[in-house]
């Protein structure tokens, strides 16, 4: 009798352990999917930027410096992102710098009414600003997933399993210094 009770307990604990493990795997997969989605949008941004710069440079003759910075930021982001399966600090910083320089370009483009009349430019602007949004939302989803996963990894009893099977904490994508500086430097818009 006692034997069966002990056996039953062991089986029950086993099942419980498996379900905890599976939960961690599910959360970790979601984090990986989140990063993959960010990556898709980052690549799309790399592809769109040269087209946009090419089509606005005739209109924005006085902004060659800004355009050069955008291209430079794009190239260094491509380089930093190459071959990273998970976010590295270097690639996150490079992407943030790119976001900041694009933000400047968008703000400056407001000064050129001719740009508004050009349909190709407008389409590229919509695509690029939507891609910016998508990166933002993908980052939000990634950070939420990573937070849920990290909470699970750290809390009892999941941490027993996480420690044994090598579930490491995921890195959050914080707003980096370059981007924060750009946000603070952005002109205040009075909507009234």
């Amino acid at each position, binding site marked *: 009798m006692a034997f069966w009770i002990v056996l039953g307990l062991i089986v029950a604990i086993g099942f419980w352990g498996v379900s905890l493990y599976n939960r961690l795997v599910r959360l970790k997969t979601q984090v990986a999917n989140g990063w993959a989605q960010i990556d898709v949008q980052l690549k799309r941004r790399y592809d769109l930027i040269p087209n946009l710069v090419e089509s606005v440079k005739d209109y924005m003759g006085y902004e060659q410096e800004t355009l050069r910075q955008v291209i430079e930021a794009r190239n260094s982001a491509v380089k930093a992102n190459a071959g990273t399966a998970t976010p590295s600090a270097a690639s996150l910083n490079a992407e943030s710098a790119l976001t900041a320089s694009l933000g400047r370009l968008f703000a400056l483009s407001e000064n050129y009414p001719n740009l508004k009349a050009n349909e190709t430019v407008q*389409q590229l602007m919509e695509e690029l600003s939507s891609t910016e949004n998508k990166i933002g939302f993908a980052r939000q989803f990634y950070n939420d997933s990573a937070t849920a996963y990290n909470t699970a990894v750290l809390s009892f009893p999941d941490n027993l399993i996480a420690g044994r099977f090598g579930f490491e904490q995921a890195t959050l994508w914080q707003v980096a210094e370059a981007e924060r500086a750009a946000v603070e430097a952005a002109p205040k818009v009075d909507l009234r």
Partner: protein
Amino acid sequence: MNAAVTAEPVTGPRVNGTDFLSAQAENRRNTRWLILILILLGLILGYVIGWALEAWASADYQVADTLNISALGILGALALGGIGIIASIVTFSSGDRIIMKLTGAEEVTAETEPVLHNVVEEMAIAAGLPKPRVAVIETEALNAFATGMSPQKATIGVTRGLLKSLNREQLQGVVAHEMGHVLNLDIRYMAAVGIMVGLIALVSDLALRSLRMGGRSRSSGKKGGGALIVLLILVLFAILAPLAAQAVRFAVSRQREYLADATAVQLTRNPLGLIGALKVLEGHKEKAPEIGNRATQHIFIVNPVKAFKSGGSALFATHPSLAERIERLTNLGRG
């Protein structure tokens, strides 16, 4: 712009400022209770009908006997439950196509509606879901809907009038609300609730009809008071059950609207877009032509069918009032 964002004072129970996660948790609890009530109502109705039949069939209408568990009553409850499950399976497999037909929505490509496609894709990314199909209803009315028994087969549709009168931020709020319905599996929820309500109405109606038929042939009261009591209970149930079921259905629907609003804020992290959109919808609702009908009204972001009178009973409304929704969203923004 600023004036559009400040909330007008709203009467009614005030919702405390709270974050969207606890708003969602509370809503899921409420919905679960309401659906449990609905299932219980169906089972009790099935039981009462079976029980009345058994009492009817027994020679002497001993009411005391009927206080014991009625076998036919249990059978009735099981039968009603079984039919409900079968009807749900049929609806889940073909309901989407029917809804697209009923609303007159046409699927659009990314080439013809790039901004709408982009906004839908942005919200799908925020929700971590595959991108739904995108549809437009060619009407000047302002509305939006979502269908799809699962997030993999979802469609989000908006009217042409909505596309014309909202800015990108407001459109994003509306699409986020619809994505909230997809994420929270509301379409499936409301289909299941609709089936239960329809079934209860149908069975009650059948019971009442057969009573009227049976009543004429054998009501010559030689069996006394027992029969009258059984009859009374059955009639009372057959009349009240569909009404109660309908009220529960609309209560579930209103809860899901609030939940989708809260989810929209979770996705956009910006309540102002949806608040702005709801204000535009409210300003527009008197002049808008009607789309949809009583069968499809629950899938839209605002009720597409005009109420008989403006003070129409809140108990039988599929959507909460816009003022109340804006009030709750404003509180979320403050929280």
